[in-house]
C-alpha cells in the first residue's frame, strides 16, 4: 500500500519532536538558569537550579509536567493515530526530557547535594505521573 508523506510515522514523530524540542529550548533559555547551552561548561549542572527555590531546576520540571499532562489529555481524548504520533510521541516526547533531568540529578549528587537531588527526583516523578493522570482524566471526563 502506498502511503503519503504525512502518513509516515517516522516523519510525523520527527516533525512533532523537532517542534517540541524547540519549545523546550526556548523555555529553558527564557527562564533563569534553564539553558544547557549557557554557561554550563563544567561538569556540574546541565541546566542550573542555583538561585531557584530549593536549588531545583524548575524549568525542566515545568516542561516535563506540561508534556506529561498533554500526553495524558491526548490519550484520554482518544485521538487518531496520526495525531498521537505527531503530538504524542513527537511533540510531547520532544518537549519532555529524561537526559537533562538525569544529568542535573547526577550533577547535584556529585556536588554533594544528595538531598536536593532526591527532592528533584521525587518531585519530577510525582508531578509527571500526576500531570499525566490529571490530563487523561480531564480530557476523558466528557466521554
Amino acid at each position, binding site marked *: 500500500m502506498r502511503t503519503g508523506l504525512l502518513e509516515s*510515522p*517516522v*516523519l510525523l*514523530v*520527527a*516533525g*512533532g*519532536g*523537532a517542534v*517540541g*524540542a*524547540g519549545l*523546550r*529550548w526556548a523555555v*529553558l533559555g527564557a527562564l533563569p538558569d534553564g*539553558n*544547557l*547551552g*549557557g554557561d*554550563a*561548561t563544567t*561538569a556540574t549542572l*546541565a541546566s542550573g537550579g542555583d538561585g531557584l527555590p530549593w536549588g531545583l531546576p524548575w524549568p525542566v520540571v515545568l516542561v*516535563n509536567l506540561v*508534556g*506529561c499532562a*498533554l*500526553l*495524558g489529555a491526548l*490519550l484520554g481524548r482518544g485521538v487518531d493515530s496520526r495525531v498521537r*504520533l505527531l503530538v*504524542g*510521541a*513527537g511533540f*510531547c*516526547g*520532544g*518537549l*519532555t*526530557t*529524561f*537526559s*537533562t*533531568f*538525569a*544529568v542535573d*540529578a*547526577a*550533577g547535584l*549528587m*556529585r556536588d554533594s547535594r544528595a538531598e536536593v537531588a532526591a527532592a528533584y*527526583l521525587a518531585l*519530577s*516523578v510525582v508531578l*509527571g*505521573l500526576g*500531570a*499525566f*493522570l490529571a490530563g*487523561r482524566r480531564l480530557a476523558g471526563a466528557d466521554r
Partner: protein
Amino acid sequence: MSGFTIPAFLAVAGAGAALRWLAADRWPGGHRGTLLVNVLGAFLLGLLAGSDASAATLTVVGTGGLGALTTFSRLAQDAVDLAEPSDDTSPGMRSPGVPVLYLGTTLVLGLAAAWLGLEITA
C-alpha cells in the same frame, strides 16, 4: 549562535525523536525501548556536559538530539500502563510492583549512566 544553529537543532532533534519512537515501536519495543533510549541519552549527555564542547554543540546535540531522544512523558505513560493490567492483552501475571520496578530501574540506571558520563569526560 550562528544562523546554522536553529535548522541544525530542528534536524537533530527530529532525528532523536524518530530514533526514540523506533526504539519503542520496533526494537527492543515498548517500555524496554524507552528505558534503553533514556539510559543511553543520559549517558551521552553526561559525556557531553562533562566535556569542553562549545555552547552550540551543547544546544544542538544535547538540548536538541539527546533531549528529544529521551522522554519523560512516555515514561509516565508506560508506568501508568504497567499499573493498569486491564489494558494488557498478554496472558501473563502482573504484579503491582511492576510500574515501581520500571520507574526505579529507569531512575537508577539513568542517574548511574549520567554520572558515569560525567566521570569519564569531566
